[in-house]
């Protein structure tokens, strides 16, 4: 079928060889740079893993990081958990009341908390509060040559700086998740029973029926993966910080954005994988109660 365009118009619409060459070169550069970035991140993660097992970290590097990640994050995680529990109660009650299922609120709130919201929100708070701070601190160390100084004095920067941060995130994020879960359960219970006037016996009974130890384990397993992701992403961004105040700011922002995207991606993948494990172990959907 004729397009109605003259040959000269068709020539104008077609890209010239030079433009095509530039287009291919630009896309090629993007692909190569992306592969380099992923490869660099993978090597960084691998080196961190190797140094975690090769040499024991020093006590003076472990304690400040455990304090920073665990103790200082506890209040904000507890507060977030409490509010999320209460918000879940408000939202679920609004919808469940019309169906006459108010007594099922405990099951919905507690299931959502232990499987999803507890681990994801604890990890998000950790990525915002600790991950950005790690990236900014290590970025400043990179810019002011402190990381070079460490290396020049025979101390491996990954062993000295990254491994303690990884261990702090890995060991303390499950504790923070448990805290978020607990405070969420308390917040949800308080709002449902004390404010909405739902019968507390039915609230707990339905929770016990639906929320099992497997659901709780799913949350904890997810939190471990989130902890590793936050530590490695944040430290990697800090180590690759570009010079200047802008570079440090960009490293801190990028560490949060990348960590958050990774948290959501891991949440989905681990959720699917653990559900497959669950259905292969208990095809009939049997639950082990707490």
């Amino acid at each position: 079928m004729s397009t109605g365009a003259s040959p000269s118009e068709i020539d104008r619409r077609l890209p010239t060889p030079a433009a095509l060459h530039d287009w291919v070169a630009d896309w090629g550069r993007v692909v190569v740079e992306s592969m380099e970035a992923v490869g660099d991140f993978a090597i960084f993660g691998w080196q961190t893993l190797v140094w975690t097992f090769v040499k024991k970290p020093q006590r003076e590097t472990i304690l400040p990081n455990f304090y920073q990640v665990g103790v200082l994050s506890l209040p904000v995680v507890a507060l977030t958990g409490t509010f999320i529990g209460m918000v879940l109660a408000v939202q679920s009650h609004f919808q469940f009341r019309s169906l006459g299922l108010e007594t099922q609120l405990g099951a919905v709130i507690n299931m959502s908390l232990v499987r999803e919201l507890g681990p994801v929100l604890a990890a998000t708070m950790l990525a915002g509060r600790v991950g950005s701070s790690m990236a900014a601190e290590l970025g400043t160390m990179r810019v002011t040559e402190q990381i070079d100084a460490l290396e020049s004095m025979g101390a491996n920067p990954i062993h000295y700086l990254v491994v303690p941060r990884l261990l702090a995130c890995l060991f303390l994020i499950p504790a923070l998740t448990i805290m978020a879960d607990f405070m969420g359960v308390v917040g949800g219970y308080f709002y449902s029973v004390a404010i909405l006037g739902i019968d507390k016996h039915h609230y707990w009974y339905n929770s016990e029926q639906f929320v099992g130890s497997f659901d709780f384990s799913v949350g904890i397993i997810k939190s471990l993966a989130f902890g590793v992701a936050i530590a490695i992403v944040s430290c990697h961004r800090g180590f690759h910080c570009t010079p200047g105040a802008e570079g440090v700011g960009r490293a801190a922002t990028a560490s949060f954005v990348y960590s958050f995207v990774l948290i959501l991606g891991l949440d989905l993948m681990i959720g699917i994988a653990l559900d497959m494990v669950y259905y292969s172990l208990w095809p009939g959907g049997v639950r082990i109660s707490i």
Partner: protein
Amino acid sequence: MSEDLQTYANGALIAGINLSVQFGSQQVLREINLSVPRGQTLAIIGESGCGKTVLLKTLIGLVRPSSGRVEFDHGDISQLNERALTALRVRYGFVFQSAALFDSMTIGQNVAFPLRQHRSFSPAEIEEIVHERLAEVGLPDSIVEKKPAELSGGMRKRVGLARALVLDPELMLYDEPTTGLDPIMSDVINELILRTRRRYTVTSILVTHDMRTARKVADRVMMLYPLARRGRDESQVLFDGPPSQLERSEDRLVTQFVRGEARDRLMEMRSEGDLAS
């Protein structure tokens, strides 16, 4: 590697052979050869951005060369594993341009850091060595508990020197040791470099664009030129010889740098359009 270059490297404590360094598409160093015999103090001079600091960091393995190699005490450092490289790094001290003291540690902890990493001294012994080293660079005991942010630039540089000296290194590397300091403090640092050399008989390489420092402390001067403004067949090294010969160099780029004259550079900048005429 040619036999000439091997002979060139043989008598040296540290030698760079055909060193080239490239970051992405930007080449910073091209086929640099340098050899520093034991006990010598070499000053690497050149304008900002010519690759002096990159060369210094390449010599101790902080920057990996894209081609060529570095020999320290006749061993190729690129062949060393992590453990051997750590053992090697104990043999040199590096004084960074910004001192690079650890912000989170006190001055005492900064100076003690290499000792805690590589020696098994008691806390009392470490404390004694820290006080001794700080006294050598003219700093009082009262600063031991202070944080680096509480000190002046000159004091931070001296703490950096004390930290670099704490393991009795064989090779000292100074990255622009007097940059940003007042003339008196610059001379204090020059005197400390000379005193360090006399007391510990160390080999030293310093990177500077302060001609007063280069003339005062160096036995030999090497001048680098930014690669972006050199032709494909032109060497990046404009001068390599004793400081007394600098003024007599036949290369106008060398004499202009030494005298601080901007004539040719201004003309270049005008022709490049960087500067309005």
